[in-house]
C-alpha cells in the first residue's frame, strides 16, 4: 500500500541553510546538502528545499543546489522558491531535481502550471499554497497569498488548489500561514478541505510542534504527507522516531 511520507524542509539563502540547527554530529550545519543527506540516512522519504535568495544570482545558485543534491541524495527532492519560468524549471530538473514547487508565479499566470505539466509531466509539478484563514462567521474559508505570504490575492485557497490540479499540478504543498511557526499543530480544517477537494496528494505544512500533530493531520485531515522544519532541525525529534510514532498509531510508513 502507498505509504505516508515525512518530508523535512530546508530554507536556503545563497546556498546556506537559513534557520539554525543543533545537530551535533554534522560538520557544517549550514550546508543544505550535508543536512539533507543526514535526513536521508535518518529515514526521510523526501526533502524540500525552499530557496529564499533575493539576489539576481538566485537562479544559478538554485541550479547548483539541485546539482549538488542530486550527487548526494538517494531519495527524491523538490526545489522551490520564486520560480517563474519554464526554462528555470527545465534547468532544475536537468540538474537532477525530482520535482519543482511553484507558488507565487502561477497565481499571476496559471498557465505556467500547464506549461510545466505538459513538458515535464505532472509528477514533477508541485503547487505550493500559502493559505490564511478569512475571519468571519459560517463555513471556514482561506485566502491564497503570494510573495512569501506578503501579498493577499483574493483567491480562495481551496478553489485555487482545484484549478491548479485541473491545470496539471501533481501534488499540493499546503501551508497554513496561521499555524506556521506556532507549534500548535497543522490546520486540520484547511488540510481536510483541500485534500477532499482534489485527487492528488496533499502535503500538510505549518504548525507541527510534536509527533501527535503529524499523526492527526494524516488520520483526521487526509494528508498524504507531512512537512516539518523546526521539530527536526532543532533535534527535538529524529525522522526515525517520528516514523516509529506514526507506525504505532497505525499509519503505514517506511521504516
Amino acid at each position, binding site marked *: 500500500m502507498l505509504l505516508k511520507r515525512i518530508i523535512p524542509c530546508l530554507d536556503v539563502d545563497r546556498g546556506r541553510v537559513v534557520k539554525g540547527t543543533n545537530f551535533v554530529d554534522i560538520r557544517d550545519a549550514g550546508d543544505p546538502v550535508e543536512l539533507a543527506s543526514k535526513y536521508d540516512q535518518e529515514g526521510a522519504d523526501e526533502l524540500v528545499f525552499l530557496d529564499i535568495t533575493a539576489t539576481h544570482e538566485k537562479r544559478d545558485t538554485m541550479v547548483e543546489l539541485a546539482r549538488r543534491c542530486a550527487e548526494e541524495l538517494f*531519495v527524491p527532492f523538490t526545489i522551490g522558491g520564486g520560480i517563474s519560468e519554464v526554462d528555470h524549471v527545465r534547468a532544475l530538473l536537468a540538474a*537532477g531535481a525530482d520535482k519543482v514547487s511553484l507558488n507565487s508565479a502561477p497565481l499571476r499566470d496559471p498557465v505556467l502550471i500547464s506549461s510545466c505539466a505538459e513538458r515535464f509531466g505532472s509528477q514533477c509539478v508541485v503547487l505550493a499554497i500559502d493559505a490564511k484563514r478569512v475571519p468571519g462567521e459560517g463555513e471556514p474559508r482561506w485566502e491564497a497569498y503570494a510573495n512569501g505570504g506578503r501579498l493577499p490575492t483574493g483567491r480562495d485557497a481551496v478553489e485555487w488548489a482545484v484549478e491548479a490540479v485541473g491545470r496539471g499540478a501533481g501534488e499540493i504543498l499546503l501551508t497554513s500561514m496561521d499555524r506556521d511557526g506556532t507549534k500548535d499543530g497543522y490546520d486540520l480544517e484547511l488540510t481536510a478541505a483541500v485534500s477532499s477537494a482534489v485527487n492528488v496528494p496533499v502535503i500538510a505544512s505549518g504548525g507541527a510542534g510534536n509527533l501527535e500533530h503529524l499523526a492527526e493531520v494524516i488520520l483526521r485531515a487526509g494528508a498524504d504527507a507531512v512537512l516539518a522544519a523546526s521539530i527536526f532541525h532543532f533535534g527535538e525529534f529524529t525522522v526515525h522516531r517520528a516514523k516509529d510514532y506514526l507506525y504505532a498509531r497505525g499509519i503505514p510508513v517506511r521504516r
Partner: protein
Amino acid sequence: MIYILDYGSGNLRSVQKAFEAVDVVAEVGADPSRARSADGLVLPGVGAFGHAMAELDGRGLIDLIKERIGAGVPFLGVCLGLQLLFEDSEESPGVQGLGIVPGRVTRLPDRVKVPHMGWNQIEIMQDSPLLDGVPDHSAFYFVHGFVGVPTFPAYVLTTTDYDDLTFVSSIQRENVAAFQFHPEKSSELGLKLYRNFGRWVYGRGR
C-alpha cells in the same frame, strides 16, 4: 564493467552515482562496442515507450540488447527500462518493444490515482540474488502511469498493492531483471539492489 545505456532519456547520472555509492564501476554511454564488451548492462529511463524505442533504434541498440541478453549477459531494466522489455505498450500503440518478456504494458486503470507516485511496498514472489538482504514488504519509490503485465507468472519477481490493484513491480527471466520502481531514489535498500546487481555480474567476491 557495467554499462548504463544512454539513449537520451534524461538523467542517468542518478543511476550511475547509486552504483558508485556501493563501489561498483558503471559507465554511461551509447557506444555499441563498449556495450558489447560490458559484463552487465543497465537500461534506465523515463518518458514515453514509443520515443524510447525510436531512440534505441536510432543508436543501433535494439539488436545489441537482444544479442547480449541472448549471450547471457546480466541485464537490469529500471522503470521505463522494465516496460521496454515487453512486447508492446498501450502508451504507444503499434510500436514494438524489445520482446524479451512475453506480455504487454498497460495503463493503470482510472479508478486509481495516476501516476502512481510515492513509496510503496513489494511482495516478494520468488527468490532472486537481486533481492538478497531485502526483506519482504520493503518500500521503494515509484513514479509511473503504466505497468508491465507478463504473460507467464513465472517471470514475476515482486508485486505491489495500490488501492485495490495489485501490479507487477519487478520481473526476472534468467539473466534479465527489471524494477518498475527507482532503486536510485529508494535510499539504503535501493542501493542494496544495485550492490546485488554488481554481485550478480561479478560474483560474490566483488
